[in-house]
Structures are given as structure tokens and as C-alpha cells.
């Protein structure tokens, strides 16, 4: 008996040892949806492009799930005490996929020249930068005009991807033929793209981190229909379904399959927060009491449990709980139809119909709009659902032609990057759906956001963001819904798939498949 136990213990130890030791080789089969328009991450930053190209291109840093910076192309970094100088020390043995050495000159070119022209989101942050210089081949210095709190948070591959100077300098970036065969420094290099079918990335043998990556190749399968994507997993064609690959009502069924694991980690940097834009300019939604009534009338727990499989969190306000400087010390809007009715009566709501635009991203969002319509109907608000496709939805928002409209936005880890933009009054302008689309104006809020962005210490910033969150939650410029949970589903023998705050978007260098 004792012998058998010893054997068992030995076997257990061997297995644990095997678990701990990554296995080299193998292929990952992953779903990608929709098909990326291009893999040149410096030019295109939409979700699918980042997911595939995030293995080809790299930034100076990565972030862990607490959003703390981790080394990537930069092996270390220092911030001066006044918060104005950021110095990055680069790895000295990094090569581009075509064999050329990667140096600080590439960093200066990428950040100061290429991305300033092409990267809509980054160039707003770069306005705080006075100069970018390279004192030697492995050192880069960013000097800021004034302190900018979230600065250390803009160096991941999707926000500041390094592009090769020797290929792009002096060329027309958008029509450079090299865009079709992207060259990065990442753990995987581009091998093949059969449009409409698949993209193949293969291991970069000269990668600067010893032993990595573990996988030989990654196949990204383009499968346009959500039901077919579920079938692809069920029949064993793919082993990894990144968040949002299958309809929510299929998630549980697939997660119950044998050897199947599921995680909602790997979205901390994005902190996807859903809300309904409420048009603050006209109609009943211009009245604060009406907007508060909408918050009380919605059963958001129901939406999370019935439509999102219980994944995600009911939102408490404008900041996601994974984003820095979040506070839940704000007024809570629990489901309370009576309170909603009282508010509507107080404002003298006359039953005017409000138009609601669902998000044209599939079945879940359509159902969600219907659930909200029913909730609001129960307190006497008449809702008309107006359906559009993505282009039509873009235009209606950009032209402010709506009363209520579903959306969700990323927060990029810091309120100065992904929250302030939706509420500050200087961001009210037609023609974009990424600014203050609701038309909310409050000089106090403007002030607080401005001060918090440039405050030097984290304590100072926390205090200012606490205050702004409380004010916003009282005013309800938009109706916050859920912090979305996008589950990644994968075979349990795929290990270390999600190791950073952007999960599969830059994580495959750590991934291995247990035999």
C-alpha cells in the first residue's frame, strides 16, 4: 500500500514537473473574426488586426493583469522625479524578421514619424511629448511638455507598435507593398495569407528571448458565421476561440465540452464598458431626471445573467473596475422601477417616443435592445428600436441623429486615455462617434479631468478621479450598462494562453501545448 502511494506521489511529481516545463513545438488553431483588412499594425488598429499582428509586431512594454508594465522590447525603464523624462533601455540583440537589427532609431521613427501620421489614438497622447531622442543604439528618451499620468501605459503593441525604419522611411506608408508581408520583431513571423480562408504565422527562430516562442506555428481560421465557428471548435478544427468568437448563447454549451477551459481574463487593459448614449441636447433625454429614471428602470443583473451568461459586471459608473483610479464610492442605481416612475412623474414626462439604436454586432445586442425596451416600457417609456448596419450606426451617431444608442468602448487602462474623451466638453464635435457624442457639458468635470491627467502623484490623481466619477454618476450623461466579459474558450492542454492584460492580442509567445 505504502509502495503504491509512493508510486502515485512520484507520478504526481513527474506530472507537475511536466506541467511546469513548457513544451516546444506544435500548432495553435485559432479563430479570427472578422477577417483583418490588413496585418500592418502601424496602419490599422482594429480588433482582428491587433489580435493577429500583435504576434508579429511588438511594443516597448507589455502589461500584466494589474496593468503593471512588463519588459518587452525595452528591458528596463526609468521615470524622472518630475515625471517629465522617460528613459527606455532596449534589448541589444533584437532583429527584424528580415534579419536587420532593431535599434533605437526604429523607435524614434515609429513614434515620432510614422505613428504620428497614421495612428489616430496614439497621436492624441503624443501631443504631450516634447521630443523623442536616441542617445545611443539601445536607449530612447521621451521628454514630455508637462507630466502626463498615463504615459507609461501607451507602450503595448496595439498602441505603439514598432515599425521598421529601413522599410518605411521616405515611402508612401499606405501603399507600401511591404504592408502585405509585414516585418516585425515579434515571436512569430508572417508566412501566408489565403484571403477568406486562413492566415499562417510561423516561429521566428532568431527571437531575442531564449527558448521562446514555444509553438511552431499559428493558424488563424477565418470563419464568417458564428454558428460555424462553434462547429469548428466542436469538430476539433480549431482549439482556441478568442473572446466574442461565438454567440453568447453558445458559450455555455461549448464550455461544457470535455477538455475545455474558459477564462474572462486578458481584457483588463481594454476594460470594455458598455453604455447607452443618451442625447443630452434635446427630447426627454435632455432632462437629468429622465436619464436617472432610465438607470433605475433597467434590470442590468438580468441582462448580465440572461444575455451574457453571467459573465461581466454591472457597471457602477464611467470607469471600468479594471481601469486605474476606479471607485465604487458613488451613487448606486439598483433596479428600482418605482423610483424610475417617480422621477418621470416629477419631470412631467409626456410619453414621447424615444428612438433606440442597438449595436449592429450580432444577436446578443439585438436581444439586449429588446430587453431594455421592455424594461423601459414597464415604467411607461415608449421605445422605438431603429435598426441599422455598422456604417449606418456610425453615421447616425456622428450626426447626433438618435435618442439612445448602445455602444461599448475600451478604456486603455487609464481614465485619461479612455474615459475623459466621452465626457469633456471640448470633445463635442459632429463627425466622430468616439468623442462626447451625448453632448454633456460641465465645466467642473472638464476641470477635474484636465487636472487629473497632468497630476504627478497617483494619490492626487485618485482624489480627482474619485470626485469626477461621483459627479458624473449623479448627472448620468450616459446610461452605463455592463463591464463586458468576453470569454476566451480553449482546450485545457493549451497552456499560458492569457498572460497579459490584453490576453491573446500579444500572448502567444508564452503559449505552449501540452502533449
Amino acid at each position, binding site marked *: 500500500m505504502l509502495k503504491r502511494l509512493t508510486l502515485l506521489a512520484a507520478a504526481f511529481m513527474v506530472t507537475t514537473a511536466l506541467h511546469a516545463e513548457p513544451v516546444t513545438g506544435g*500548432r495553435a*488553431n485559432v479563430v479570427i473574426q*472578422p*477577417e483583418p*483588412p*490588413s496585418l*500592418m499594425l502601424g*496602419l*490599422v*488598429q*482594429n*480588433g482582428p488586426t491587433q489580435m493577429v499582428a500583435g504576434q508579429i509586431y511588438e511594443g516597448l512594454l507589455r502589461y500584466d493583469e494589474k496593468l503593471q508594465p512588463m519588459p518587452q522590447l525595452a528591458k528596463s525603464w526609468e521615470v524622472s522625479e518630475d515625471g517629465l523624462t522617460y528613459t527606455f533601455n532596449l534589448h541589444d540583440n533584437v532583429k527584424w524578421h528580415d534579419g536587420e537589427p532593431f535599434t533605437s532609431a526604429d523607435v524614434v521613427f515609429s513614434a515620432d514619424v510614422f505613428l504620428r501620421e497614421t*495612428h*489616430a*489614438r496614439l497621436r*492624441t497622447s503624443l501631443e504631450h511629448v516634447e521630443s523623442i531622442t536616441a542617445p545611443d543604439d539601445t536607449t530612447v528618451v521621451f521628454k514630455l511638455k508637462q507630466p502626463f499620468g498615463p504615459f507609461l501605459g501607451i507602450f503595448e503593441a496595439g498602441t505603439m507598435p514598432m515599425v521598421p525604419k529601413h522599410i518605411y522611411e521616405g515611402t508612401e506608408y*499606405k*501603399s507600401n507593398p511591404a*504592408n*502585405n508581408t509585414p516585418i516585425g520583431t515579434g515571436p512569430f513571423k508572417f508566412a501566408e495569407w*489565403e*484571403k*477568406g*480562408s*486562413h492566415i*499562417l504565422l510561423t516561429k521566428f527562430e532568431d527571437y531575442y528571448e531564449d527558448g521562446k516562442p514555444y509553438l511552431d*506555428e499559428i*493558424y488563424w*481560421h*477565418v*470563419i*464568417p*458565421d458564428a*454558428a*460555424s465557428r462553434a*462547429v*469548428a471548435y*466542436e*469538430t476539433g*478544427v480549431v482549439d482556441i476561440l478568442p473572446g466574442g468568437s461565438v454567440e453568447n448563447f453558445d458559450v455555455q454549451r461549448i464550455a461544457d465540452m470535455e477538455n475545455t477551459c474558459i477564462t474572462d481574463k486578458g481584457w483588463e487593459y481594454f476594460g470594455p464598458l458598455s453604455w447607452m448614449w443618451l442625447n443630452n441636447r434635446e427630447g426627454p433625454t435632455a432632462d437629468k431626471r429622465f436619464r436617472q429614471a432610465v438607470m433605475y428602470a433597467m434590470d442590468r443583473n438580468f441582462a448580465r445573467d440572461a444575455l451574457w451568461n453571467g459573465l461581466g459586471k454591472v457597471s457602477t459608473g464611467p470607469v471600468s473596475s479594471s481601469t486605474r483610479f476606479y471607485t465604487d464610492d458613488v451613487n448606486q442605481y439598483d433596479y428600482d422601477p418605482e423610483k424610475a416612475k417617480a422621477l418621470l412623474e416629477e419631470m412631467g414626462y409626456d410619453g414621447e417616443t424615444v428612438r433606440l439604436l442597438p449595436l449592429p454586432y450580432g444577436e446578443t445586442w439585438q436581444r439586449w435592445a429588446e430587453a431594455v425596451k421592455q424594461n423601459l416600457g414597464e415604467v411607461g417609456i415608449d421605445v422605438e428600436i431603429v435598426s*441599422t*448596419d*455598422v*456604417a*449606418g450606426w*456610425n*453615421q*447616425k451617431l*456622428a450626426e447626433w441623429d438618435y435618442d439612445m444608442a448602445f455602444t461599448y468602448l*475600451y478604456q486603455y487602462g487609464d481614465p485619461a486615455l479612455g474615459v475623459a*474623451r466621452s465626457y469633456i466638453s471640448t470633445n463635442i*464635435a*459632429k*463627425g*466622430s*462617434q*468616439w*468623442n462626447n457624442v451625448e453632448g454633456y457639458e460641465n465645466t467642473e468635470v472638464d476641470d477635474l479631468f484636465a487636472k487629473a491627467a497632468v497630476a504627478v502623484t497617483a494619490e492626487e490623481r485618485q482624489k480627482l478621479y474619485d470626485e469626477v466619477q461621483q459627479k458624473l454618476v449623479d448627472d448620468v450623461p450616459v446610461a452605463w450598462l455592463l463591464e463586458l466579459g468576453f470569454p476566451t474558450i480553449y482546450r485545457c492542454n493549451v497552456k499560458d494562453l492569457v498572460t497579459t492584460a490584453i490576453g491573446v492580442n500579444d500572448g502567444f509567445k508564452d503559449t505552449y501545448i501540452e502533449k
Partner: protein
Amino acid sequence: MLRFILMRLGKAAIILIAILTLNFFLIHAAPGDPAAVMAGEAGAADAKFIAQLREQFGLDKPLLTQLGIYLKGVLQFDLGYSYRQQMPVADLILDRLPATLLLTMTAFVISLVLGTAAGVLASARVGKWSDTAISTLALLFYATPLYWAALMAVLLFSVYFNWLPGFGYETVGANYTGFRRALDIGQHLILPATTLGLFFMAVYMRMTRASMLEVSQLDFVKTARAKGLKSGIIQRRHIFRNAMLPVVTLAGLQAGQLVGGAVLTETVFAWPGIGRLMFEALAQRDYNLLLGVFFVSAAMVLVFNLITDILYRFVDPRIRVA
């Protein structure tokens, strides 16, 4: 004959330009434009950035100027550039054409051969159980929504029985070559081609059956019988050949759609064809690409109409004489 073909080609060119112009205005009437869609996907963009994109794509010019530029390009066999996919439109279409042709032509052959054969069989056995069975099947195929039939086929043959691959053009990553690859593609083709062929198969069945029955009542058939010709010869030479006229017309119409692809089938079965390309281009307001696909499929409809007209002359001597 040559004069006839040249005249028809001349007319076709005018029709083609008219179609392009109409499509151009229709697409621009839809809300949104490619710059806004692309900026939208970037996750953040200000109005300045969108304006910069519009300028690059030439979308800031007056609509008529844009149309002029486009038509001038087409006349020089240049279908333009897809800004979203960052590739010339012609390359994108040519890239997808083989897969689409394989799918639609297989479906075409399956539906035409099986549909006509079943129709002839049914007409020869009017009122018998085989006729009833064929007619019922035809009604079923005719009425079943393609999308549903496709999903059911995947569920049954792919998920439950695991006999056939449920989607894709070939086994990705298997790197088959030669005959093994052809076999692999063939296996992937069975479900989408059959599903896509069902509707037209039903139409051919019903049309052939009705047409055969109608022709068999005509006087010249009675005469042939009176002359003492064998029933098989009457069926083949007299009835079948005459009954084929409406079928040829229909086949011409179906053939014209071959290049346009099959949006639903290609979507459900992840078939990398033109139908999907078109659908994505529509969703993203990729004007040049969408117009390019429309152009190619309109041209194909016109070409196949011409071929149908020429075929008529062979099938039916009366038309040749007229």
C-alpha cells in the same frame, strides 16, 4: 452570326455602363462611407483624421467627379483600389474567382443534371409513386430556406456523423498536394455545392416535368406516334429536345449568377468566394470593391445571356431561320 454577336456586344457595353452608374449612385445613397467605417474600427478618431482619410480616398470630391474618375478607370480596365484591403480591386476579385466558380459551377451541374433527369423520370410516370416522390421533393427543396438547409446539413453530416468537413475550402494546414489535395477540396465541396444546388434542382425538376408533359400533348408528337416511331425515340428526339427550351433559358439565367457567388452559402460554409467578398465590402462601404464585384457579375450575366441566345439557335432551328 458574327454581326449578330457584335451588335449584341455593343448593346451589352452600353447596358454595363448604365448598370455601373446606377450602382454607383445606389451605393453612395446608403448611409456612411468607408472613411467613417475604417476610422470607427480604429477605436478612436477625431473628425480631422476622418477628413484626412476622405481626402486620401478622393471622397471629398463632388459625386459626379468621383463617378467620372471611376468610369474613366473602368474604360481602361482599371477597377480601382480597395483602401480598406489595401489591394487593387481586380486582384481581390481574381483571387476569389476560382473558389466561387468551383462552387457555383458544381452546384450548377448538380442541379441541372439531377433536376432535369428527375423531371424527365417524373413526366414518364405521371401519377405513379415515383412521380409523387419527385414532386414532393421538388416542393421541399424549393421551399426550404437555404440558410437553414445549410446549417442542418452541417449539423447532420459534420457534427453528428462526422462524414464531411463542415466548412472551408480545404483542410487548412494539411499541405496536401496533387490528387490528395483535389480529393480534399472535393470533400469540402460536397455540402456547400449540394445545398446551393437544391433550389435550382427543384426548379429544373418542376419545369422539365411540366414542359415534357405539355410538349407530349402537341400534334407533332401524335403524328410521330401515328407513324409508328418507338416511344424511346419520340421521348428523346421529339419531346425532350422541344421541352428543353425553357430549361435552357433558366440555365442561362442561373449561369449568369455563377460569378456573383452565393453570399449565404459562402458565409455558412466559410467558402472563400466572391459572395463573401461582396457582402463584406457592402458592410464596410468599400465602394470600389463593391462596384468591381457588381461590374464583373453584371458582365457575366450579359455574356451568358448572349450564349443562351446563341444556344437557342442550335436547340431550336425555328429561331435560327427567323
